[in-house]
């Protein structure tokens, strides 16, 4: 009897069904583990490795991985690739994370206001979402990146500008269906303000889809940063990012293929880990949405 009631009404958040379902998703756990290890390596690693990411050693140019003193070899200037990879990881993960935070904030605001207010406000907001979605992301990103100063902060903002629409759509649809429910009507009868109902009453009920979207947006943002930095319009050297480490790699593809292979593996591991986690969360929250 006690066991039954305990399983029906969890006393702690980690006993909830969502957490249990997430923990039974093996790929999501793998993703979580990978992201944990990757973040740890990027934060701690550069202190443990004997080289500085900007230290140029022209005698050690193009050292192959696993030979000599450099674990992952060196680049065309003789800089240690392992430490550069980890420093780049810091930048790429930070840009990805903050671009996600920004785009979730914007998307959430647009979605909640549009879905709750309805009418012409919603029409204007949702048609703007459609408008942004009509541009191929990379065209808009590159045009903005070329027009504005490509500092890491600006790159983060630009990525957010081209990534908030999906969240807005998801939240708008959820809010629109929630606003007819009794608890919202009760809130109105109590005389609560629109802002209070939108953000304190309705929004907590949309957190599941938002958390799923947030995870997938990190993955997307890391990819987008890699795309524009690879093309030379993102994070600018000497600051390393996974994308710009690949920028000059094509010309050395024949003689030094590891320059192209290593950063790409890092990107793929990071992005697929976030996608795995997002997939697990989607199952856990039981969100039926395939727009990503």
């Amino acid at each position, binding site marked *: 009897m006690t066991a039954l009631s305990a399983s029906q009404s969890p006393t702690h958040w980690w006993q909830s069904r969502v957490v249990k379902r997430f923990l039974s998703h093996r790929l999501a756990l793998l993703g979580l583990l990978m992201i944990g290890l990757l973040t740890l390596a990027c934060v701690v690693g550069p202190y443990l490795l004997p080289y500085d990411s900007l230290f140029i050693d022209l005698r050690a140019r193009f050292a192959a991985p696993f030979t000599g003193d450099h674990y992952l070899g060196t680049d065309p200037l003789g800089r240690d690739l392992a430490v550069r990879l980890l420093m780049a990881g810091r930048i790429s993960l930070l840009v990805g994370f903050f671009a996600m935070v920004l785009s979730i904030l914007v998307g959430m605001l647009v979605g909640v206001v549009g879905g709750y207010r309805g009418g012409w406000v919603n029409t204007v907001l949702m*048609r703007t979402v459609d408008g942004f979605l009509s541009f*191929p992301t*990379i065209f*808009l990103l590159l045009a903005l990146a070329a027009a504005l100063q490509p500092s890491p902060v600006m790159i983060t903002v630009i990525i957010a500008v081209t990534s908030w629409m999906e969240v807005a759509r998801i939240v708008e649809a959820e809010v629109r269906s929630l606003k007819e429910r009794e608890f919202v009507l009760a809130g109105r009868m109590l005389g609560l303000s629109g802002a209070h109902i939108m953000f304190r009453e309705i929004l907590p009920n949309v957190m599941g889809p938002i958390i799923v979207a947030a995870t997938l947006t990190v993955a997307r943002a890391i990819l987008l940063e890699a795309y524009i930095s690879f093309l030379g319009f993102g994070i600018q050297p000497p600051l390393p990012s996974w994308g710009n480490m*690949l920028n000059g790699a094509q010309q050395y593809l024949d003689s030094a293929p590891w320059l192209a292979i290593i950063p790409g593996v890092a*990107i*793929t591991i990071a992005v697929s880990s976030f996608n795995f986690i997002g997939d697990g969360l989607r199952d856990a929250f039981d969100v039926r949405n395939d727009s990503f």
Partner: protein
Amino acid sequence: MPAFLLKRFMQSIVLLVIVSIIGFVVLNLIPGGPLAQYALDPGMTEADKARLAEQLGLNRPILVQYFDWAWRLLQGDWGTSFRDGNSVLSVIGRHVLATFLLMGSSTAIAIGIGTWIGIRGATHRYSIFDYAATVGAMVALSIPTFWFGLIGIYVFALRLGWLPAGNMYTIGDGSVLDYLHHLIMPSVVLALVHIAIWSRYMRTATLDAISQEFVKTARAKGVTERRVLMKHVVGCALLPMITLAGVQLPSLLTGALVTETVFTWPGMGRLFLDSLGYSDYPVVMGLLMFSAILTIVGNLIADIAVALIDPRIRLA
């Protein structure tokens, strides 16, 4: 039906207006705005710039400028390329076919392989194949397209020597076979992400269709399993495929830009990057607007096609 078409058409017009506003904002974000092309000219004095601004009407209220710009866009006056003095539309026109060729062949590959994986995954649900396809699709969506291209060049061009590392044709050859030879790697690279998307879609669509009553009826009538799959299940999934193809246009264009860069393919994506490199803003703006219009028109055509085929909409 006419009511649906009219409504859908009006939606596209509204979307075009919004897209043009976003485009205009981007144009004005460029340092120097529409005068950017003169920014690098050392012979330009401040007085010259002021006179030009006066001549081009840049002193007018921003709203007037917008309508003027949008009106010229509508008339087909997209400006002239800063680099070679040709009209922007003719410059874009020279590169459109190469991109369409790449996008078309890659979509054919993606639909072919993706559909097969999706149907097999659904009919052999929870098998090793299904599980591998699911994980594989998620990884495929996580691989940067350009990196996949670089690995492809390394393996198939540099190590094995089976495929060319770039360009659209060999100078001095240019036969159909030569074009095809050059087309293989870029279109497969561009297709990877879309194989993942199509296979996920087909798996869901097939699972949905299998549980439908008409499939049970067909099976009860003694129709072979293969025929049930090919005729009823795939037929059921075909219509939304048209819509999905339209929805994927922007991501296809994004992939094309990156793929064209890696494989020096002379399409719109490469043109866009080259123009950015030369600060050729009229062409950059032209391509930005062109790609958005292409998306909107593509989606409109897809929706009209679905409406024409689907009796539920056609007869409404």
